[in-house]
């Protein structure tokens, strides 16, 4: 595991973000260093995907700063943003494969768009990436012929095709069987260490990620409620962390989207 030192690759400073009137995130501080794999955990709808989008520059913070590699994402020109994104890879929550191309062309897409490599080299690179996610044999399939887990693995291969310096994974483990899950987890770790990159992954898989990552942030109700190394997390007696790590139904994490209490609904039912 890499020590946290030097200039951080990603730094969020008191970030606030709202969709219209509805505040999704407030006062979020988060730091990721090169070499680190960082997990973001939190309940469904707590704003994890939104956080990744802020880091990727798809959304702009309403207050506070998002810095990636020393650059303020809020004040980048389009061309500077694109220059930065060439060194980022993002795995979307639902894969977002290009449905008019087969698996091979999907993974080759960033290589063809951004490099002038000869076709044979691209072919080798693509097959290598596909091999790493266990889908070299599926190169000729169309996205519609893949299962959900396979599509996500292809999307992962595409996200890392250009060997990025920063990788953003939105739930890389969702829909994977335990065997693929272990393999993909190792792949994420290995890629990160080999490239000296940084990875941020949103995940619900507490046990698998605690074995894998260097640091964990817990998001709830729009803020970071706890953070620490896996050892600190395991030992923590914070009620929130405890509920999450041990998957307890009762605790500070709300299961329900904010709503008036059920009793008030029942009152309205005519008798």
């Amino acid at each position, binding site marked *: 595991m890499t020590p946290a030192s030097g200039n951080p690759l990603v730094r969020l400073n008191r970030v606030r973000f709202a969709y219209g009137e509805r505040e999704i995130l407030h006062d979020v501080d988060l730091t990721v260093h090169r070499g680190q794999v960082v997990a973001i955990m939190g309940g469904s709808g707590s704003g994890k995907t939104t956080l990744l989008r802020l880091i990727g520059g*798809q959304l702009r913070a309403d207050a506070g700063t998002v810095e990636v590699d020393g650059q303020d994402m809020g004040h980048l020109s389009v061309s500077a943003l694109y220059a930065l994104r*060439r060194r980022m890879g*993002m795995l979307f929550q*639902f894969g*977002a494969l290009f449905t008019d191309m087969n698996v091979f062309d999907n993974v080759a*897409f*960033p290589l063809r768009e951004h490099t002038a490599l000869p076709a044979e080299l691209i072919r080798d690179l693509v097959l290598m990436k596909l091999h790493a996610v266990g889908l070299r044999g599926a190169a000729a399939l169309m996205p519609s012929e893949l299962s959900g887990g396979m599509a996500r693995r292809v999307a992962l291969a595409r996200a890392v095709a250009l060997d990025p310096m920063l990788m953003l994974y939105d739930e890389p483990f969702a829909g994977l069987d335990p065997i693929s899950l272990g393999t993909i987890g190792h792949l994420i770790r290995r890629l990160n260490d080999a490239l000296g990159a940084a990875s941020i992954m949103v995940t619900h898989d507490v046990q698998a990620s605690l074995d894998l990552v260097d640091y964990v942030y817990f998001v709830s109700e729009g803020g970071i409620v706890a953070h620490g190394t896996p050892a600190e997390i395991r030992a923590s007696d914070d009620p929130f962390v405890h509920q999450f790590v041990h998957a307890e139904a009762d605790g500070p994490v709300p299961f329900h989207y904010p709503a008036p209490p059920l009793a008030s609904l029942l009152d309205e039912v005519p008798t």
Partner: protein
Amino acid sequence: MNALLRRIGAMTIDGLWRLGFMARFFFALLRYSGQSFRRLPLTIREIYFSGVLSLLIILVSGLFVGLVLGLQGYDILQRFGSSDALGIMVALSLLRELGPVVAGLLFASRAGSAVTAEIGLMKTTEQLQAMDMMAVNPIARVVAPRFWGGVISMPLLAAMFSAMGIFGGWLIGVVAIGVDDGAFWSQMRASVDFRYDIVNGTIKSFVFGVAVSLIAVFEGYDCQPTAEGVSRAITRTVVSSALVILALDFVLTSFMFRGL
């Protein structure tokens, strides 16, 4: 009364906003069009999807329109004893009006709706966002080639529609009814003016091509990213293309053919 006025006002402002969005979108589209021509295969692929795949419906419809024109034209012209002019009538109505307009309407419902659906679904499934995250501009890579594919296809389709229609008129007039073959063609050749009729007709079909393609890519790009949003966008493409074609046709005609 007040509420009605307010609604009309709101709708007008809404419409102006959309028009403004569309104009900005159009400029962005033109700005990022370079790639469509530098990477020609992208555009050629769209010409295939928009143009080549519309060919059958265009040719068949052209034939039927020509057949009808032959019948109706003969019926009217022979009352004045000038059935030899059938060739002129068929050719001029197709080249000036029916070719561009009917081909444009067919093109909007066949190719325009397909383009809207495709771009709308790409948006719904986050493919456009994914592309953007890979530092590839979706307007340059997805929208512009589809736009230019449509713009290039449309005049060619209209020309083929007219050719097929003239053939249909000839089938009815000359082969079935027995109008003199030589008169049919020579009168047509003598009266159809290249600049006045053919160039003007081509300008029309080009303008319709720009309008329909712009509407189709804009509606797809701008749609609500849901199944319902995509279906509404497709409907809007077909309906507003038809209205715009007919309105533009009137405007263009009144400028082009007023020296009658």
